[in-house]
Structure formats: structure tokens, C-alpha cells
């Protein structure tokens, strides 16, 4: 097994990876920016090295510094976490060329799924259901209008290199399409240095269902069932659960098979997530595959009792998966709430600052993944997520009641957080019945 792994990330996911490594007897190197000097990952890792100034481009996105740190510390592998360089094929290539194992799929696979338009096209040709849309990218505004009219409005205008809701626009008619097309194009150019755009039919009130995949280097691919991530605000997931209240056994099995097939087509190796949209009729459509560990991976971990981060590391070392599809069971129901340092009453504007009081919830069925503590200063430079609370229970109802209890116990002083927002959603009758779609939050906030 690897003797030492460098974690090219920060915050809760860096801590998560350090914890996995400790449990595997692997030494860890944390890299940190000047703003993260007093962060838990920098304290909990066996070694910690400052790689640059606070802005991400000078530290967590600065490839030479990270590779240099890896070389100095003589690590066997780099775990990229999520965000930052996690889906950067170029970075993965550099790692390989420096004889450092990149913990993730091959660079070519990252590149393939990085181009959403291309991936969609390939999957479509292989018989995977995708949303009706353009054949490949759309070059001109006129072409866009032609396609949109054929599909019927509303349509989604999407950046091929997009992600996290960036470079994504909805158009309801020719006029709004003109705006959407230009806006998406320039946003994509600015965000990803690539202005390729494609068009998909927009589903009305779909659910966002994703399947967790594990694939080793010996041809074994399996899925750990689904997560329902339909509770989103502006394409940012807020609450996730597993299993989905919308799936019954047969549909789950079919979607799982499709997800495994997607990974197989791509020659996937590592943990990954196949994302689908599911409509009211029970038809589902592949939208993309994420080639990294997801923020919401714990809900799958607590119901399957499989440690996804450890599996990533084992697979990267070349091990075979120690279980088969038939061994994968779901024990109970899990929910995750992402707690952000944001003010829900002010359009979720981020609230960096010092955490003056901190008391995490405890007791049965609760997992807290967080890098904060009493006295921690949330830096302004990075994203606003400060904790994930995951609850598990034998029934969905138990997990919900437990989450409400956890949210009530959780004390985070000094900064505004999304705790009150989560408390409200958890109490909503539609949420409690499991009858929600990706429109839930927007409709909810309009009330």
C-alpha cells in the first residue's frame, strides 16, 4: 500500500481523506495556503507544507507548487478531493509523468467526461438514454434557434466544459434563447476558457438522481445505489439522501445497470458518479459523470457501510474490489444537510468570519464532517461550506426526525449559517413525504 499520500485540497474533504489514511496506516501530507495556516487538516496531517498565498490560483490551483511539495515529501500518490484540481486532466497527467499516482481515473477518462457535450454524444451512440438535444456543440445563434424550435421550449443552454451551474441558462422562447446563448457562451469562456455550447430539452420538475460507481483496474464495476440530490438552489446541492424516495426496486436496478454501463463504456477506474435526471413518468436520462469523490458521498457510506475514500485509495494502488454487486445492501436511510456560512435571509450571501461558539450534535445516528472549531476564522477566499451533517435511521422518517434534532443541537456562533433554512425544509410537508423535485427550493423561496 502507499506509504504516504499528499492531499491537494483543503477544508472538510482534506480532513476526510486524512481520516481515511489514518485508518489505513498511510502517512499524510497536507498542503495549505497562507489563509489555512490554522486549519485542522494542516494540524491533523503527519506533515504540512505551505504552498502559497491565500488565493486559490496561487495555492490549491497552482500545479507546480503542489507537485513540488509532493516531490519534496516523497509521496506515492496525490488525492485531489473535489473541486480545485480534482477534474483537471492536465494535472492528472503531470502527476503520472512525475511517477506520482493520481487518485482518480485515467487522464483520458477525466478529459472525456470533462467535455459534457462529447460525453453525451458518445453515450447516446452507445444506447444510453440522454435528453433530446443538439448533436454535439452549437456554433451559432441561428442554429440554436432551429434546434430549440425542433425540441420545443423550454431548453437548456449548457457549456460543454460546465459544472456547478456555471455557463448554464434556460430559455423559454426565441428571444430569451438569444440572450441565454450569448450569456452562456461568454460565461463559459470566462469560467473554463472554452466557449463550446450545447443544447438540451429541459425536463419539467425532474429529480436529480445519481449513482455511486466503484470500478477497479481488474474489470470489476459496481454501483452503491443512488443518491437523490434534487434539493438544489441554483444548481448547488443543499440536501441529499439515499435511497431516493422516488425509486422502487426495479427502476433502481435498471438505472444502476445503466450507470455501470456508462462507466464500462468509458473504461472507468476509481470511484465516480453517474448523474441522471428522472422525469415523472419514470424515464431517466444520463446528464454527466463526475470523475471524483462527491461532497455528498457520506450518505452512501452510511447506508452501505463502504468507505468510498478508502476504496479510491485501494483501487489506485491496484487492488481488486473485495465485494460484488450482490454484496451491496442498503441498511436504512441517510440524509445529508450541507451547512454553509451563508445568510439565507440575504439571498444566501456568504458570511466569512470567526466562529465564536461551536458545539456539534452527537449521539445515535449522526455523522458530522467538518473542519471548523471554536475560534476558527472562515477565510474569504474559498467556498462557504463549513460542515456536513449526515443522519441515518432504519426508516426515512427516523433519519428526518434525527436530522431535526441534530440541527437543533448544532450551535455555530459568530457567523450566519444555513441551519435555519435546513430546519424549515426538513419541516416542510412536501419534503417529509419525499415529493420534491429540483424546483423545490426555488418554489419554496418564492413563498
Amino acid at each position, binding site marked *: 500500500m502507499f506509504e504516504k499520500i499528499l492531499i491537494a485540497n483543503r477544508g472538510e474533504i482534506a480532513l476526510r481523506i486524512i481520516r481515511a489514511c489514518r485508518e489505513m496506516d498511510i502517512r499524510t501530507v497536507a498542503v495549505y495556503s497562507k489563509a489555512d495556516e490554522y486549519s485542522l487538516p494542516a494540524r491533523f496531517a503527519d506533515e504540512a507544507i505551505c504552498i502559497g498565498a491565500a488565493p486559490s490560483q496561487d495555492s490549491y490551483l497552482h500545479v507546480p507548487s503542489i507537485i*513540488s511539495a509532493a516531490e519534496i515529501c516523497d509521496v506515492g500518490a496525490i488525492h485531489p478531493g473535489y473541486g480545485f484540481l480534482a477534474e483537471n486532466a492536465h494535472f492528472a497527467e503531470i502527476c503520472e509523468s512525475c511517477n506520482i499516482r493520481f487518485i482518480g481515473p485515467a487522464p483520458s477518462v477525466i478529459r472525456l467526461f470533462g467535455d459534457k457535450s462529447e460525453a453525451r454524444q458518445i453515450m447516446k451512440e452507445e444506447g444510453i438514454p440522454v435528453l433530446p438535444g443538439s448533436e454535439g456543440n452549437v456554433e451559432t445563434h441561428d442554429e440554436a434557434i432551429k434546434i430549440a424550435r425542433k425540441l420545443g421550449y423550454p431548453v437548456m443552454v449548457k457549456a460543454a466544459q460546465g459544472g456547478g451551474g456555471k455557463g448554464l441558462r434556460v430559455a423559454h422562447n426565441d428571444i430569451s434563447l438569444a440572450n441565454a446563448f450569448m450569456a452562456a457562451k461568454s460565461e463559459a469562456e470566462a469560467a473554463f476558457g472554452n466557449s463550446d455550447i450545447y443544447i438540451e430539452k429541459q425536463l419539467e420538475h425532474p429529480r436529480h438522481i445519481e449513482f455511486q460507481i466503484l470500478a477497479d483496474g481488474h474489470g470489476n464495476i459496481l454501483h452503491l445505489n443512488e443518491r437523490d440530490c434534487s434539493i438544489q438552489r441554483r444548481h448547488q446541492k443543499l440536501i441529499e439522501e439515499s435511497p431516493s424516495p422516488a425509486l422502487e426496486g426495479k427502476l433502481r436496478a435498471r438505472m444502476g445497470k445503466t450507470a455501470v454501463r456508462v462507466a464500462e463504456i468509458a473504461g472507468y477506474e476509481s470511484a465516480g458518479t453517474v448523474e441522471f435526471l428522472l422525469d415523472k413518468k419514470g424515464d431517466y436520462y444520463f446528464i454527466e459523470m463526475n470523475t471524483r469523490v462527491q461532497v455528498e458521498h457520506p450518505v452512501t457510506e452510511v447506508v452501505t457501510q463502504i468507505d468510498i475514500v478508502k476504496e479510491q485509495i485501494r483501487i489506485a494502488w491496484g487492488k481488486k474490489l473485495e465485494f460484488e454487486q450482490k454484496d451491496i445492501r442498503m441498511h436504512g436511510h441517510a440524509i445529508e444537510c450541507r451547512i454553509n456560512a451563508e445568510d439565507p435571509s440575504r439571498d444566501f450571501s456568504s458570511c466569512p468570519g470567526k466562529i465564536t461558539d*461551536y458545539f456539534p450534535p452527537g449521539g445515535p445516528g449522526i455523522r458530522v464532517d467538518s473542519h471548523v472549531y471554536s475560534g476558527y476564522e472562515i477565510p474569504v477566499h474559498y467556498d462557504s461550506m463549513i460542515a456536513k451533517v449526515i443522519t441515518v435511521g432504519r426508516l426515512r422518517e427516523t433519519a428526518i426526525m434525527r436530522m431535526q434534532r441534530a440541527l437543533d443541537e448544532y450551535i455555530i456562533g459568530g457567523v450566519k449559517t444555513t441551519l435555519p433554512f435546513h430546519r424549515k425544509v426538513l419541516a416542510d410537508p412536501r419534503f417529509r413525504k419525499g415529493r420534491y423535485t429540483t424546483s423545490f427550493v426555488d418554489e419554496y423561496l418564492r413563498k
Partner: protein
Amino acid sequence: MNLKEIREIINLMNDYDLTEFSMERDGFKMALKRGPEGAIMSQSPIIERVAELVEKAAVEKKEEEQPRGAEIVSPMVGTFYASPSPDSSPYVEVGQIVDTEDVVCIIEAMKVMNEIKADIKGKIIDVLVEGGEPVEFGQPLFLIEPVE
């Protein structure tokens, strides 16, 4: 109020981490204050252990800095080399005067040899890192006494 009373009050302030104490006798006024030092005790142990280190570092630095001037710090993570090659003499030596554009060392990162410039005009007082030693971002490499 006599000296003995004052001494006792000072002792009390010390015992209970008071930072301020005032008093007026006729008509009687009084004010006590406990500063933020009182609170440090109950801080998270992690930040505490960190704070301890930082504090120590600060003390050490101050002691050294005071008489000794400025630092040239590493602008990147890498391996420090004092000379262009193992056989050649170092770029700078203690006592040498350097100009802002003078190369003072090399930091190797990803097989690239990065020449590091002084960025400050002055006299080298100390070389803080051994050749071949790994350095992190912001790590002091040289002590320098600014000139002019």
C-alpha cells in the same frame, strides 16, 4: 488605601486575569475588567496548540529580527540551492552586499531551477537554509540588513 492593599489588589488582578481595575473613594466608584487573555484558556485546543507555536515563533523571530533586519523569503515550494551547481561557489555569502536584481539562490521545483532575486538592497547577515534542503512558501531564506 495603603501599599499593602494595593499590592494585594495587584495580586488579585494577577490571580484572576484582570486587565483593568479602577476605583474612586469619595462617593465610591469602582471598575474592574478581565481582558481577552482570560479567555485563551478555554479556546479550542487545536487553535491553542497552533497559537502556542505561533507565539513561540513570534518571540523567536522578534529576538532575532530586532537587531538583524529583513528577510528574503521563499516565493515557492521547492528545494533550496545556494549555488548554481554542486562544484561552483554560492551566489552570495555572509557579509556580501546585494542589489535587488542579484540572484541569491535557486529553488528547484518540478525539475525547474528558479533563480531567486534579492528584491531588496542590503548586506547578507545570515543564510538560514542548508543547500539541498526543502523549503515551503514564505519560509525565510536569508537575513539581510537593508542598505539606504
